[in-house]
């Protein structure tokens, strides 16, 4: 007896959808491409317009203002190392990509997380989608991203957003759901509108949790830079990728070091934003 069904044509379905989107939503993708492309390029041009040493000082001051002396010191030395090794320009390009992807993730992720916190129905739909996004190998996003946005930095940003957005959505949802019930009750009992309740109570109390999600999102976006370079995104990720394909261990290590420095600085600065929030100002 043979119970085997013929192979389901899932792959063909996906390609059909992709093809349909390509031919019917073209202008939309073009608009998104222009917007994201100009944002990333604008940012990276702006970062690189400032002399590198002045930029290092500015980052150090920011780190000192938000964090403590140790983080400022690390920022100063780490960024100087990147500059010294000759990866400054590419690192700034990567930073522009990561920041753009993170901002997009926050702009989409936080409202979606709020929506999930308010509606169990929405949460039930969104949660499996997020599981899917996080477990599907990241390389797979590259193909449709390239198909819609062609090669370059834009599909890299899109892939980073898809890969990086889940923690922001999840932790926004969680943070708002964890606001103690009696506080929500108190806000209601005094006649708050839903918006007042959100902005005066739920978001401030959930802020540290949401920031933890944003921190994760930034880190995940950063982890995508090497993968994104495979489809033509510029930056220090491309240097790593090139070194790998040419089997140049030394260059690969240097470029990889630049990614690590950037990661640690972004991580510590955002984490300190969280702890500062917890302490209340």
């Amino acid at each position, binding site marked *: 007896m043979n119970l085997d069904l013929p192979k389901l044509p899932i792959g063909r379905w996906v390609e059909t959808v992709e093809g349909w989107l390509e031919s019917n939503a073209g202008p939309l993708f073009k608009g998104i491409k222009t917007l994201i492309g100009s944002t990333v390029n604008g940012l990276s041009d702006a970062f690189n317009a400032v002399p590198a040493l002045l930029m290092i000082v500015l980052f150090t001051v920011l780190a000192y203002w938000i964090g403590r002396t140790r983080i400022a010191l690390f920022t100063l030395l780490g960024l100087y190392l990147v500059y010294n090794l000759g990866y400054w320009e590419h690192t700034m390009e990567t930073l522009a990509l990561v920041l753009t992807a993170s901002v997009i993730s926050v702009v989409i992720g936080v409202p979606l997380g709020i929506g999930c916190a308010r509606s169990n129905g929405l949460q039930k739909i969104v949660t499996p989608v997020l599981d899917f996004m996080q477990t599907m190998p990241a390389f797979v996003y590259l193909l449709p991203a390239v198909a819609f946005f062609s090669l370059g930095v834009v599909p890299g940003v899109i892939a980073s957003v898809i890969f990086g957005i889940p923690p922001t959505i999840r932790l926004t949802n969680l943070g708002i759901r964890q606001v*103690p019930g*009696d506080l929500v009750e108190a806000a209601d009992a*005094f*006649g708050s509108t839903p918006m007042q309740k959100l902005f005066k109570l739920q978001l401030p109390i959930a802020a540290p949790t949401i920031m933890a999600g944003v921190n994760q999102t930034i880190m995940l976006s950063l982890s995508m830079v090497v993968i994104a370079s495979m489809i033509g995104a510029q930056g220090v990720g491309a240097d790593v990728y090139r070194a790998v394909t040419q089997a140049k261990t030394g260059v690969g290590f240097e470029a990889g070091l630049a990614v690590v420095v950037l990661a640690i600085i972004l991580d510590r600065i955002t984490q300190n934003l969280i702890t500062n929030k917890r302490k209340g100002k």
Partner: protein
Amino acid sequence: MAIIEVRELSKVFGNDPKRAYRLLDQGWSKERIAKETKLTVGVNRVSFSIEPGEIFVIMGLSGSGKSTLVRLLNRLIEPTSGQVLIDGKDIVRLSAEELRQVRRKTISMVFQKFALFPHRTVLENVEYGLEIQGVAKSARTEKALKTLELVGLGGWADKSPDELSGGMQQRVGLARGLANDPDILLMDEAFSALDPLIRKDMQDELLELQATMKKTIVFITHDLDEALRIGDRIALMKDGVVVQIGTPEEILTHPANEYVERFVEDVDLSKVLTASHVMIRAETITMDRGPRVALQLMRDRGISNLYVVDKSRQLLGVVTAEASAEAAKTGRGLEDILVREMTTVPPDVHLSELFEVVSAAKIPVAVVDDRQRLLGIIIRGAVLSALSGNTETEAGDAE
């Protein structure tokens, strides 16, 4: 007119509340319904009305439905059926916006675990109700500071709530509830999270504040002593039903059923009953009568003292039978034999404080109001007899 009137108010949690009503009508208990269906009867057809300025205590053990009931009053929980009339307007039928207005202006709430906003300072917490109404910053700050002053936390405005002790935090909760000048204050187990000494202080303070504020307070508690201390009237709840409503005295002295009786049997009556409960009517005489009249009266009633009052029943003193007989012989007037020094007590003094006074006095202690008008007298046996639970005869005599 009643400020709050609750009519046939019910709350059933679950999908098919009508089924719960049918089962209740068939005599099913709340437990049986919960066990055999997925329905929970929170509040079962409760009716009562509350007068302006009253402290109305809703008291019951956990699971009795009291916390649900208080949340039905401002619709933090949607009633399944019934009406809640506030100033004659049915809260249950209001739109979301109208309900918000009622919550902003008319009813506010104080919570068991304080529910202060941890990301706001004490002042910002108290301002909250005004802030969401759009009151200008300077005006609401001024009002909030004044309210904090009222609860004795004037100097703590800029602290964070978690820097305050439990008692102080609940004062902030109280100030937050009072800042928007509501007519009605709902207090859900407001003092239950505080330790006993602080709790008593807070009760005293609430009564003190209430004396000037004259708000209508609905106070939820599981603590009978608290209910008896602060309640003008008490509604006793069990299994979602109001078992008895009455003044503390009525509940203690005339328990409606066995449940209430068991509930109140451990109460220290001496701390609940007051002089007014045990006093009996005093035999009086006015000054313009002569000693012979006095003697005759005493002989008729079989007593040995007469209390002398003026036309407005103000107590002037007492005359004894001996002195009257003496005066009748020598032809002196009542004025000459009047004993002016005597023990008097106000009507609201508790029996616990009366023991000594009563046993030290040679003649029955007079109960007078704040204008020295004679209300009644307390004979020695009455206090002990009241404490043994036998209050009805005395109460009857006093009327």
